[in-house]
């Protein structure tokens, strides 16, 4: 069986759903954050697969920028999570319920 770009797009869709459900179902801030990274990488995989299928380089170029932006997001996100963690000794978002109404 030939593995065509369509399969990679399907895998990317599965990854995206895994990431999205992880974000919505898990309650640990770090795990939720990792789920976001899975979603970003699903988009990356789609870019590369679609670019390959269409025979254009734009997809791979896009991935470069997405990777760098994702790294910047990791740094800001970890900093925020560490700040929260230092104060409360928990990273569960269920314990963050001071603001509601």
């Amino acid at each position, binding site marked *: 069986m030939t593995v065509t770009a369509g399969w990679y797009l399907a895998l990317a869709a599965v990854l*995206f759903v895994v990431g*999205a459900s992880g974000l919505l179902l898990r309650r640990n*801030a770090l795990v939720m954050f990792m789920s976001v990274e899975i*979603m970003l990488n699903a988009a990356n995989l789609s870019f590369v697969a679609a670019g390959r299928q269409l025979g254009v380089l734009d997809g791979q170029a896009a991935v470069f*920028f997405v990777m760098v932006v994702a790294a910047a997001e990791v740094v800001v996100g970890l900093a*925020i999570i560490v700040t929260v963690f230092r104060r409360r000794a928990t990273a569960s978002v269920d314990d963050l319920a*001071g*603001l509601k109404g």
Partner: protein
Amino acid sequence: MNGSLTFLSVAPEIALAAAVVLLLLVEVTFKPRAWAWAVVAGAGLAAGTALSAWQWVAHRGADTGTFWNGMIAVDGFAALAGLLVFPLAGLGLMSAWRLAASQGRRGAEFIALVLLAAAGAHLMAAAADFIMLFIGLEVFSLSLYVLAGFTRERVDADEASLKYFLLGAFASAVFLYGVALVFAATGSTTFYGDGGIADYLAGTVIFRPGVLLAGLALLLVGLAFKVSAAPFHVWAPDVYQGAPGGVTGFLAAAAKVAGFAALARVLTAVLGARADDWVPAVAVLAAASVVVGTLLAIVQDDVKRLLAYSSVAHAGFILTALVAGRGGVGDMWFYLATYAVQVLGAFTVAAAVSGDRAGRSPLAHWAGLGRRAPWLAAAMTLMLLAMAGIPLTAGFAGKVAVFRAAIDAGYLWLVIVAVLATVAGLFFYLRVIVAMYLASPEEGASLPASPAVGWGARFVLAVAAAATLVFGIAPWPLLEVLRDALPL
């Protein structure tokens, strides 16, 4: 393309980036007093505004020109976004000045983040490629996540920051996956030009549009998150309530301007050929935002939270203009510009009443404000009346403009829903006004000491009040001018 013009196309961003670099280098080298920060930031924002004004004069009403291999668009739309975002950032800094100055040496970082957010916001409006739009979106969002939790010593602020970050990152990922799907369907991430998405969609009949439509839906969801349109608004109340008072106004105003600028260009210019697919979705989002925002605002007891739900409702009103497609973009700009000033003014008053660094602003703090601080109460009253859409304020003119655009587009039901919500909304705006003028502080209630208003905040309130009244009494000249700000 002529070389100097290429650099002039991103000149506003270059000015802002240079200001940030200079600010940080000066900060660690000389450890200057706060006024030096103000000079550098002011110079950067003034340069950005001036360059945007130059772009406006040169390109208003003309077709979009693209530079950097179709990455950056120069047109009236992008120039107007600069003319709105950079002064707004300046006003935001003035409003937040006491907060920034109270943060010791970290204040320089605060100012740098505001400048970066402004640059990112303008990049979102000027992007002519989805990748550039994504970068602008992230520069903008990452700055705001940090600003929302800037007073990290306070518990609410880091909670707000974390919630904003997790949901914002989720929205960014959804948006990016939408971009990837649109790329898979059309073979391009560029908006304009030969082989761009707009060109492809206008010239091609797509027999199996599933991937394209899924991408379009995800794009819409991602950007709806950023502008806090229901049902993607859940972060807004927590973030606006938890963020330090001084910066909440900038947070709210800039997020709306940048998000809607991106949304308007993507929907009308890029996906204009698929308008039949997205207009109904936008109409439903608009109706949901207006209804949810209004109903939930009614039950709030915290003024910052109330303003947050009101901003959800306003996202709905602004979306109402977009159902008219390209014809509604001028009306959208009018509503957006006047609302951004109003919301900045309202949060500035909230910061004065409850404190620059405080997150919460319970209604009890506002009791009897009309006697304690008549000018603050008057400014807040004007802002609230404008948001409610009382005639002779800019809010009324804006609502009339967006409703007319939607009626012209055949969305009478949406306008009826929005008008009903406007009437219901009067209730909660009036509740704050009644508290300020008719209620007296409870016995023994611990009110913050007499409201502290810095010179920056006074200037912001004066500008907001003047703009609200001038454009409320005579909106036509501005509406006429904004017709040139289309993403053609």
